[in-house]
């Protein structure tokens, strides 16, 4: 194979042959779709690239069986447009990480990329993650073998669940060639409840209270004033104060009742403002697109924690590190922006989150910083041992995006 070349195989067999050849030559490859997330993760040292971008097309869609299959390079936008026509959607509402870090925008995110990084958005807190909705894959492992796992039916415990195991592995275990996912009907109507100026602790309490209600709250977010300014809805962006929002989605006939009951339950937290269907959709589009995090090149961390610890964790962080924090997923997902620093704040941040049993990933930082520190959460040695052996089981020559997640893997 040629070094410094981008290979764009048109099909699975061609891809498998390429990978087999690279394995024979022990030639490391950058595995990608349209490279929209190329600036996330550890910088790759590979000169040769294999993209699934030309492997496109929806291969199966059965709306009444709630299932869709597509080749890995199919643009997410194409899939969402087809689902929209049938009043369906990807319930995990993939978040647009690609907007964050100056990746390439040509062609947009691919469905393979969505599952390779397990990109889940606001609705994840109610309906589950991308990997939860992934029911089958075809993939090429690091030896150039075509492997399938799962299938096209919702329930399947036949053999090990390699499909979900590959999800979130950033192309380092296998190259996805086709993914099959569960889809769901789109809600008929949407409404949002907004609080202004809640302190973090109060906002997390309100979000937890809402999630513990029977009303199927499908999105929760708490933004600091400086992030609110970045939203695209002008009247909200101009509020100049923290905004906490809760979303409910259902049949129109249910929403009056459900918002009413939530009003009652959440009255103690402060005055509540409502967004109607159209304005709700616009607001949550911003949250899903991570608009509140764009327009800055400061280092950005994504922290995963138990929701009830979220506000305490941030307060501990703020005592030692200048930072701005936003919360999603009832307080369990925290986005933390820090001023530029050699280690992007890693030393302090990782020491503090360890006390909370949380997990942190550096989502945005310059390449020097991403090469110097652990981008993904460092793991105990016993876990690392498993991960090394797992890599070996899929990609013994370590040619699939080596080092993207962990050095040497």
């Amino acid at each position, binding site marked *: 194979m040629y070094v410094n070349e981008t290979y764009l195989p048109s099909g699975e067999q061609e891809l498998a042959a390429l990978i087999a050849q690279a394995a024979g030559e022990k030639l490391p490859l950058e595995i990608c779709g349209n490279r929209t997330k190329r600036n996330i993760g550890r910088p790759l040292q590979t000169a040769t690239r294999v993209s699934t971008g030309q492997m496109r097309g929806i291969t199966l869609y059965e709306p*009444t*069986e*709630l*299932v869709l299959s597509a080749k890995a390079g199919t643009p997410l936008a194409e899939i969402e447009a087809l689902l929209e026509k049938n*009043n369906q959607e990807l319930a995990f509402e993939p978040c647009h990480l690609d907007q964050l870090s100056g990746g390439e925008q040509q062609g947009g995110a691919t469905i393979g990329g969505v599952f390779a990084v*397990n990109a889940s958005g606001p609705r*994840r*807190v109610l309906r589950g*993650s991308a*990997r*939860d909705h992934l029911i089958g894959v075809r993939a090429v*492992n690091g030896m150039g*073998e*075509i*492997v*399938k*796992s799962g*299938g096209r*039916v*919702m*329930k399947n*415990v*036949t*053999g*090990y*669940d*390699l*499909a*979900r*195991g590959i*999800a*979130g*592995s950033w192309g380092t275990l296998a190259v996805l060639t086709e993914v099959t996912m569960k889809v769901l009907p789109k809600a*008929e109507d949407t409404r949002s409840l907004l609080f202004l100026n809640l302190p973090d602790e109060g906002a997390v309490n309100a979000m*937890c209270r809402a*999630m513990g*209600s*029977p009303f199927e709250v499908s999105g929760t977010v708490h933004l600091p004033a400086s992030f609110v300014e970045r939203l695209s809805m002008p009247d909200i962006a101009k509020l100049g104060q923290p905004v906490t929002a809760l979303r409910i989605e259902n*049949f129109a*006939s249910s929403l009056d009742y459900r918002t009413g009951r939530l009003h009652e339950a959440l009255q103690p937290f402060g005055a509540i403002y409502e967004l109607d269907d159209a304005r709700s959709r616009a607001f949550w589009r911003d949250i899903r697109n991570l608009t509140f995090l764009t327009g800055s090149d400061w280092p950005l961390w*994504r922290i*995963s924690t*138990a*929701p*009830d610890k979220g506000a305490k964790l941030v307060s501990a962080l703020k005592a030692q590190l200048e930072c701005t924090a936003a919360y999603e997923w009832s307080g*369990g*997902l925290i986005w933390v922006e820090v001023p530029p620093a050699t280690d992007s704040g890693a030393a302090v941040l990782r020491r503090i989150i360890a006390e909370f*049993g949380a*997990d942190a990933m550096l989502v945005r930082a310059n390449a020097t910083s991403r090469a110097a520190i652990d981008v*993904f959460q460092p*793991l105990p040695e*016993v*876990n690392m041992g*498993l*991960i090394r*052996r*797992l890599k070996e*089981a*899929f990609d013994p020559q370590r040619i699939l995006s080596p080092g993207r*997640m962990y050095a040497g893997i």
Partner: protein
Amino acid sequence: MAGIAILKPRADILGKRSAIVNALKKLVPARCIVEDEAGRRAFETDALTAYKQMPLAVVLPTTTEEVSRVLSFCHLAGVRVVARGAGTSLCGGALPAEDAIVLGLSRMNRVLEVNLESRYIRVETGITNLGVSRSVAPTNFFYAPDPSSQLACTIGGNIAMNSGGAHCLKYGVTVNNVLGLKMVMMNGDIVELGGTHLDASGYDLLPLVIGSEGQMGIVTEATLRILRNAEGARPMMLGFDSSEAAGACVSAIIAQGIVPVAIEFMDKPAIKVCEEFAHAGYPLDVEALLIIEVEGSEAEIANLLGQIDRIAWDFAPKFVKRSESEAESAAIWKGRKAAFGAIGRISDYYCMDGVIPLSKLTQALSGIAEICAKHRLQVANIFHAGDGNLHPLILYNANDPDEKARAELAGEEILTLCVELGGCLTGEHGVGIEKRELMSTQFNDVDIAQQMRVKSVFDPDWLLNPGKVFPLKAQEAFLARVR
């Protein structure tokens, strides 16, 4: 059904039985070990009762550290280990081996932590499935996966098999409801996967372990997602002249954007047996019955059932009945949930667990009827219609070896049909020994080899739950290659 081959026990291990038992006694308190024959006999089989194997010994530890000590000794001594929850596996997943110890988790059944704000519960894995829901019921929370055996089956077993249940159409199966695990590896290492948070960065090993049928490690603790109860729930019943009409009705409901919390299907033979058992008010003159449950407030339930009623009208239902009371709802579900038991009262049965795409329902049911007629066997069909998970119950006489053999053959043909129709061998029961040899109908050699390499990541010496999941020949060939 004595047709399934059992992995040959290792004579060297059998010969060292008393030394092994004595060594185990130094690792855990004596009361944790069952060594006499009568005691061990209680563990010789699971819910696939046609197969029995007397284990070397049974260890019932009470802490993760004890599990770790036992496994590290077994690792050193080369002794195989079969993990066991409540032994309710229908596929022989918990079947012991003569040269293996059974490691039972029934004594590790404590609730360790409940956190309603973050909506999780941390438990030891010997707790029953229903035990989890019951422990949070006073706070109006529940644990979603609800296999029919939930009164007896353990969370550890649910994790091993990635169990589902009637309500997973809306809430997902075990893998969708587990946040974290503590697991003891075969070498005694204790590893924690996930935690109390969602979606950690890095590789996600949870889905590899969940559903691995006890072949990767012994899970001793689990952090499970709990959910707030809906305000109310109510089933309705719809009876049709044909299974085709029932299947089309399910599709139409989903096409209208309604995903009920459960859609269960029974055919005429199943309806009759369950009605005689539970007196649920099932109609006896229909070919197919749907039980559809929706959730919400009183008004929301009435609205949703009204919509479903209108949709069903196009398919000329012969019977439409909404539950009018808690008692009626309970009776409707009792009939469905007791179906296996009710059929067990009239005959031995062999329960299948194939999955099909819903659009292939008619083909699947007529195929099943043909297969069973060919083998001169009766069949009753129960299935989770929302997700295409079929449970044909093949009736046979366990004391008639010929009929047993025919039932097993019919089962194989039915599962092969499911795969041919685009489905899979098992939706929630697992592979175990029962469907092990059929794996090659769904997967080719490359697929199976990749799975076996993942098994080796966690258990390089293949000591955990031996002789299950993969075709025996494929296992032997793989091990011969790597050794």
